[in-house]
């Protein structure tokens, strides 16, 4: 008797969701972590977000798939929904009314002043460091190995440069705080 066929999902449109998830899956989780979701919740919500998008796309409900933005927005919506439900469940309705009206998970994480400080810190970087930062954060779909290859530098050099960039930006933001 032949072994049963693996029961895998099929997308009729030809869009490679597995590639998309491999390229952007971590970014979605990180976006949720950055908004205060614990890891287990971030991973669950990210999975749910991808599953929703896949189902919607299979049903013909997505004309355009822009990533990672679409997946991040879907996941943030789910987080917002979960936080609202959680707030209701604790029956702190009076306090929640104030909190939920101001709840906007898609808001920017940086204030205008922080953004200016971070931009100034980046402007002080060496041209090469700026190039690395611009390339890596301008191509979120690329893994570091590929980015380093395209920039013709070693992976270690790329990570060291990003480490220095993060240190500078973090210091600038802490000054602002």
């Amino acid at each position: 008797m032949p072994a049963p066929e693996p029961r895998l999902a099929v997308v009729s449109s030809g869009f490679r969701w597995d590639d998309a998830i491999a390229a952007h899956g971590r970014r979605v989780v990180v976006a949720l972590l950055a908004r205060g979701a614990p890891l287990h919740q971030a991973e669950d919500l990210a999975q749910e977000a991808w599953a929703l998008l896949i189902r919607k796309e299979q049903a013909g409900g997505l004309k355009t798939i822009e990533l990672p933005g679409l997946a991040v927005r879907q996941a943030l919506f789910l987080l917002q929904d979960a936080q609202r439900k959680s707030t209701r469940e604790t029956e702190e309705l009076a306090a929640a009314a104030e909190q939920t009206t101001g709840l906007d998970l898609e808001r920017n994480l940086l204030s205008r002043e922080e953004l200016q400080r971070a931009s100034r810190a980046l402007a002080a970087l060496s041209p090469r460091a700026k190039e690395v930062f611009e390339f890596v954060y301008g191509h979120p779909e690329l893994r570091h190995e590929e980015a380093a290859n395209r920039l013709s530098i070693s992976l270690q050099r790329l990570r060291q440069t990003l480490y220095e960039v993060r240190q500078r930006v973090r210091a600038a933001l802490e000054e602002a705080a």
Partner: protein
Amino acid sequence: MSAEHLSPEELQSFVDGSSDPATEQRLSVHVRKCSACAAALSNAAKLEEQLYEVAAARGWAPNRARTFRRATRVLVPLAIAASLLYALVLRPRAIVVNEPELTAAAIPAVICPDGPDQRQCVREAHARGLIVSYPATASGPAIGAATIQGSEWSFE
């Protein structure tokens, strides 16, 4: 709480998704038990998202989409145009409009069975970039299954 906390490099590798699956699993397990590391991970994630915001503000288009438009939006008009051209110019006695033929692709989604090992199954599937579905929500024949042998999960 764990006595030994994750290093900044380990936290950053988790944010980057640059660890190998075994390390990823170790970090993930640790963060779930260690509130200090969970907070540090949240901070690292926040900085990462802030950097994307900075890059976007500087016009580096970090959120530039890898955009996929449904093939029908482009291919159907092209197919119609080609068919009309063929029908009117090359073979004026018939007009044939063909829908574009679309290719299929597999999604690596798996069912993690209910039970005490379900969370572990989900974590391992996540580490491999797989979509997870749960028995209660799985529907239709479209989802693969996960099985456990000893402490190792395998995914169809």
